[in-house]
């Protein structure tokens, strides 16, 4: 929590040093009144708070977290969430972390300011992520914390009992999530009317009693005098709207991909379910018909990519997608798309691999597969989304490239983007929407789809060829009309043609801007969902006197031209990515950059614990030995060090290894 302005009573007690602070006190009896009425509390304006909700998946903590995220979006606050996909089909430990801020929020936050623990295991597994001086809000019906640990402020509320009481027993303890939402709303002085509106919207269309029950639970939580035990009064700095500021919309990365595709005029697609890709296809299946299009659930991933290629062949650029295992299956058909030069968008929402791997964790280990997967020289384009907002825009960029260059285009996303919610400026849709109308005008005499000296453009069937000669689309090496050839000369010419169009693309890709220092010190290079933590790490390093910059690549293949000039300006270049260092000691992007630029300065910082990078972790790796990077923070799940398999490093393996999701 960044404390900005501490107005009025500056001599108010600090919970850490003041022995009179109600440390470890448990508020069980309602007393004087709501928190805001307490005159003795120090109003504390904050611009950033990390709240972690830890419980079991059936407790609905995701939806409570999502309400907070959407509220932040509506209040024009920046927000980012982080969640773990429930490891089991129903039940099992699960968390949802919301970071809200009045300034720019880049990552979901290393440590929580506020931990809400539903159960003893939630407390035990997550207390390590609570900041010193942070607040543990726990269900005193289920949790008995170690009150002797004086680092934290303890607030116990009989959440289960009070929820059951408030809802009259019929709902059992369902509704605890909304009760807690009420508590949090009170503590942080959130906009109650907006929250109630969100709750009502969420349950609209359902039984009216459901809305009422939810509002009752909310009211019960909000009315609870939790403020009695808190020593501070938290209030977000009000957001001052800038001129021309756009409204914020709140969604997760998979939604952003799906709606980006729709904006880009993609109306057809096919897929097969797999975590964490499924929700993209679920959204498209119900959304595309509204636009006159169609998304088909295929019998398997090869069927899906083949259907998508059929859609593209018929003239409508199509999408298919999956996670690692399904992408592996699609590989042969993607090679055909490369050879036949058929536009196609392939989304890979990466998870931990290989094989079924870590289905609910995050990893960036499919970069090589995206660039090189498949036999033969089969050029394709690979883009990587860096944030939820970028998921939206990268879908549009992928469609543009696929159409212009008649090529398969990969979009790499990952579990963390797929499952987190962010608020971002509402896109200017009217400038972005593409109308996918077919051009069925007759084609002139001499039309050749595969003209050696031009970029291939296919013609949708149904367009007459005025010379009566119709082109074929082929996976065999072919001549300019698509007919097979074994000519060595033609194979050379066509191979070059397919490669050269990507060189042409590389020329038009903008060189990414560098964040932070433009030269001299250390350049952190990243791709994909590590954008936030890398940028936060650079920010922190610079605040501590380091010279550092961040370069984040969206166009991973082909790479933009001109990177060598940037690399030359820095003393050190460290590529930060969530995959293995491989037998030669370099991660996947690092390997490619070293091969491409023959730049021995390029170092590699990788990890394979299946969890998103924390800012501190990056600092530790990149600025080893510097004091600001020294502090190690324990964390739930796998340990950050992955040099050994000491039992303490894998003690919480249960939490990250899924049972039932595949």
């Amino acid at each position: 929590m960044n404390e900005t302005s501490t107005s009025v009573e500056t001599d108010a007690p600090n919970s850490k040093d003041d022995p009179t602070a109600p440390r470890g006190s448990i508020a069980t009896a309602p007393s004087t009144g709501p928190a805001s009425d307490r005159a003795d509390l120090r109003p504390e304006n904050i611009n950033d708070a990390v709240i972690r909700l830890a419980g079991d998946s059936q407790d609905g903590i995701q939806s409570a977290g999502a309400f907070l995220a959407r509220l932040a979006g509506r209040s024009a606050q920046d927000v980012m969430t982080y969640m773990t996909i429930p490891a089991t089909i129903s039940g099992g430990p699960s968390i949802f972390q919301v970071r809200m801020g009045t300034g720019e929020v880049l990552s979901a936050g290393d440590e929580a300011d506020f931990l809400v623990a539903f159960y003893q295991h939630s407390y035990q597994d997550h207390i390590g992520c609570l900041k010193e001086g942070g607040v543990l809000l726990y269900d005193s019906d289920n949790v008995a914390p170690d009150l002797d640990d004086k680092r934290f402020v303890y607030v116990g509320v009989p959440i289960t009992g009070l929820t059951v009481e408030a809802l009259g027993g019929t709902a059992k303890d369902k509704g605890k999530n909304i009760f807690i939402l009420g508590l949090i709303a009170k503590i942080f002085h959130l906009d109650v009317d907006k929250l109630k509106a969100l709750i009502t919207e969420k349950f609209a269309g359902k039984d009216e009693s459901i809305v009422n029950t939810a509002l009752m639970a909310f009211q019960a939580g909000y009315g609870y005098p939790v403020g009695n035990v808190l020593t501070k009064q938290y209030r977000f700095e009000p957001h001052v709207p800038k001129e021309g500021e756009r409204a914020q919309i709140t969604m997760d990365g998979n939604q952003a991909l799906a709606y980006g595709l729709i904006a880009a005029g993609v109306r057809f697609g096919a897929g097969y379910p797999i975590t964490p890709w499924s929700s993209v296809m679920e959204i498209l299946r119900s959304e595309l018909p509204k636009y006159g299009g169609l998304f088909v659930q295929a019998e398997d991933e090869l069927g899906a990519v083949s259907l998508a290629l059929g859609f593209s062949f018929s003239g409508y650029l199509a999408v298919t997608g999956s996670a690692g295992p399904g992408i592996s299956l699609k590989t042969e058909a993607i090679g055909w798309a490369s050879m036949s030069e058929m536009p196609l968008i392939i989304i890979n929402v990466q998870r931990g691999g290989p094989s079924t791997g870590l289905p609910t964790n995050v990893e960036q280990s499919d970069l090589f597969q995206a660039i090189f997967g498949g036999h033969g020289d089969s050029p394709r384009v690979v883009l990587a989304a860096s944030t939820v907002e970028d998921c939206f825009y990268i879908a549009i960029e992928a469609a543009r490239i696929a159409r212009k260059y008649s090529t398969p285009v990969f979009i790499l996303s990952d579990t963390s983007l797929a499952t987190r919610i962010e608020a971002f400026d509402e896109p200017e849709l009217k400038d972005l929407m593409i109308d996918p109308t077919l051009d069925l005008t007759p084609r002139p005499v001499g039309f050749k789809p595969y003209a050696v000296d031009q970029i291939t453009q296919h013609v949708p069937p149904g367009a007459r060829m005025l010379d009566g000669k119709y082109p074929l689309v082929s996976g065999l090496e072919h001549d300019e009309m698509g007919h097979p050839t074994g000519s060595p000369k033609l194979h050379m010419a066509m191979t070059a043609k397919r490669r050269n169009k990507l060189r042409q693309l590389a020329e038009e890709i903008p060189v990414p801007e560098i964040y932070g220092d433009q030269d001299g010190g250390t350049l952190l290079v990243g791709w994909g969902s590590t954008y936030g933590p890398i940028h936060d790490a650079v920010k922190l390093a610079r605040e501590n006197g380091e010279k550092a910059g961040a370069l984040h690549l969206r166009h991973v293949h082909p790479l933009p031209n001109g990177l060598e000039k940037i690399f030359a300006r820095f003393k050190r270049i460290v590529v930060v990515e969530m995959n293995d260092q491989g037998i030669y000691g370099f991660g996947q992007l690092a390997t490619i950059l070293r091969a491409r630029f023959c730049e021995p300065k390029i170092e590699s910082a990788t990890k394979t614990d299946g969890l998103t990078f924390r800012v501190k972790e990056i600092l530790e790796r990149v600025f080893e030995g510097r004091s600001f990077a020294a502090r190690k923070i324990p964390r739930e799940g796998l340990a950050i060090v992955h040099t050994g398999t000491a039992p303490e490093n894998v003690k919480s393996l249960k939490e990250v290894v899924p049972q039932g999701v595949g």
Partner: protein
Amino acid sequence: MSTENTPTNGSTTATALAESPREKLTKKAITADHPTWCPGCGDFAVLASYYKVIEKRQLDHEKIVTLAGIGCSSRFPYFVNGYGAHFIHGRAVPLASGISLARPDLHVFLFGGDGDGFSIGGNHLNHGARKNVNLTYFIMDNFVYGLTKKQTSPTSPIGFKSKTDPTGAIDQPVNPMKQLISAGASFVARTHATQVNHMIQMIERAMDHQGFSVIECLSECVEFFPGAFDPANPRKGGAFSLIDEKKYDNTPEDELRHDVTDELAAYKLAQLPFPGVFGVFYESDRPTKNALEKKWIDTTREKLGNPTDLQLLQKTFDRMK
């Protein structure tokens, strides 16, 4: 996508085209590369029948789409001057399904072999049939892998000596008719490459059928399984036994004739020992996936008041604020 161009309503053709003069579609106009098949290969007759049907029915040249997977038989699209695609081994059913679903204005024809259809593509075949996608699939069954030079195929009879079964095939072969009927294909027929008139009849009926129509054609591989289909070739001393379909003429004989809508009766015909019978085994007018999806699209759009794409997406985003 504006409503005028809703891909599933079949009105994508530019109106200007309707007015431009059209020459009669001749065999010459639809002929492309000279086939690379071995002289005497049964597949030549299939190609000739396809030309004949197109010529006879005078389909719009630009709306014919000829597709295939991989195999000798799957070289087919190269020999036809028309839109087409030569895809990968076994996956042409979903490719063709995509084209059919997006473009109801096109005639989607798919050609392939027994290995392509029943082995590597077996699952796609089952699901294409189950979903009843509107297309015509012609399987040139030669009981062997031709292109890869004589390995056992899923329809090779037990005892067939191939390079992968030098002492004779031991695995139970697929019964194409049984498989197609049980998978849910809504038009299932069988023909023989030496019986060109019958073949043309079958293609025409398959084409006119709304739904997933499949024809299995015994098409001899003279190179690797010569004489395989002589038992059904009258010129080689065999018998080409036709299915006697019901005429609904209220005669007592009609009672005994085959009712193509009777799935169990079709299954019984499929049980007959090799070379079996030829003609239409099964036909049903189950709704196609094309029609069902279109219905969903139309009702969805109607409920929403046929908004523009921009209005729709804007509304969705407004809900996310």
